């Protein structure tokens, strides 16, 4: 496979007990790209994202990451996941650990960082997401928007090549969506590769370098934000955008 793609997906399919959620997905992602994955509910967006880091096992096709076929080559998925962060809709912070420990547990246990190194990195990340004062707090004392910013910091602490965002703002109160999107915008500028399943059309239009529209287990339309959002002749995309915009 050509080396310029950090992720390449070929003819990916996924069945849940006979229900074909993903029929055939092809996608190429270059290093540093921000890919927004949009589309109606039930179109397979989240399943697709979860197949990439193997939280779901695809039933057919290939997923190449850094040139390695995740489905067919002999790989250590735990090592791969270290380079592929994920941010969840429900945050999934570890409630029994402080914010600091949430962020440092991965680097310390998996990357062999010392407590001091991990803490310094944690401080830097907390500064970046604007929550330096929450270092010693527990997740329960944070608002949804703050939790999600910490979840982003936690993913970044592993210094991943790619971050997968699974509807990162869908569980948030409207007034907290902005702060999370801002962090993601800042992140996009750093050149990290991002795949974002989202219902935030503004974010997709403004920040994404590529937008893919999923419908019924296929990618129905793909292109730059301008190509997808403006003067799109694709009927399904038009119908969807009319509903959400």
């Amino acid at each position, binding site marked *: 496979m050509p080396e310029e793609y950090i992720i390449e997906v070929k003819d990916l399919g996924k069945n849940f007990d006979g229900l074909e959620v993903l029929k055939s997905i092809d996608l190429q992602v270059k290093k540093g790209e921000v890919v927004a994955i949009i589309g109606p509910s039930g179109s397979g967006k989240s399943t697709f994202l979860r197949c990439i880091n193997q*939280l779901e096992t695809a039933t057919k096709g290939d997923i190449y990451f850094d040139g390695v076929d995740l489905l067919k080559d002999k790989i250590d998925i*735990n090592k791969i*996941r*270290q380079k592929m962060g994920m941010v969840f809709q429900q945050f999934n912070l570890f*409630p029994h650990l402080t914010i600091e420990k949430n962020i440092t*547990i991965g680097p310390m*246990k998996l990357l062999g960082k010392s407590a001091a190194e991990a803490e310094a990195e944690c401080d830097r990340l907390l500064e970046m997401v604007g929550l330096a004062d929450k270092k010693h707090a527990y997740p*329960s004392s944070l608002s949804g928007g703050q939790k999600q910013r910490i*979840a982003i910091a936690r*993913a970044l602490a592993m210094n991943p090549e790619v971050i997968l965002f699974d509807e990162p703002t869908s569980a948030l109160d409207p007034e907290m969506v902005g702060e999370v999107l801002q962090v993601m915008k800042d992140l996009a500028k750093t050149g990290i590769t991002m795949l974002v399943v989202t219902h935030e059309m503004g974010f997709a239009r403004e920040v994404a370098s590529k937008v893919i529209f999923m419908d019924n287990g296929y990618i129905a339309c793909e292109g730059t934000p301008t190509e997808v959002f403006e003067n799109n002749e694709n009927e399904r995309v038009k119908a969807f955008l009319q509903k959400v915009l």
Partner: protein
Amino acid sequence: MAFLSSLAHVFTKYGSMFGQAALLTVSLSLGTVLISTILGSLVAFMKISKNKLISSIASVYVAFIRGTPLLVQIYMVFYGLPMLGIKLPTFTFLGADFSRFSSGLIALVINSTAYVCEIVRGGIQSIDIGQTEAARSIGFNKAQSMLYIVFPQAFKNILPSLGNEFVSIIKESSQVSVIGLAELMYTTNTVRAISFTSFEPLIIVSLIYFILTFVLSTFIKKLETKMAKSNRA
């Protein structure tokens, strides 16, 4: 009045025997709860294992132990171990024969492990799957996710249930008296025989059991309240 003075007489005369026996009952119960917490957790991991053989072994064990009387299990250990050629060391421990103590302990552990297993399994399964997914997405393998993320949360949630299991064990340990271990119940019967009183020792022992369980339950309730406060949803 005559009854009360008789009660006082039995208590003053045999109080130290009851004290020694209470110590034995508490040691037996505490030992049981500590060991069965560890073994019960292991059996719980076996039971939720994806390996069919391992999980079947755990399931059969739990079903069998929970489906048979503790009294039968106590007898089976006491008479079964020597038949298997296993000799438990005999020396005096807290005023009782250690081989009987350890027989009783083994039987109670075998029994309690099955119940603790179900408590732990329930605790693990009550933790949201998102916690495991988040841990796995960072790069932790299954065992690390369990060790660092799921189990600590589960354990905190099940502490009150483990405390209640402790309370049950204190009461159920009275059945170990049938193998001649001088814990509270056995001692009660001894006192009834040597003091020629049938009822007074029962009053005393019931009060001792009640104090033990009441103190423990109160402690557990306090713990629960404290945890509810710090519970970080």
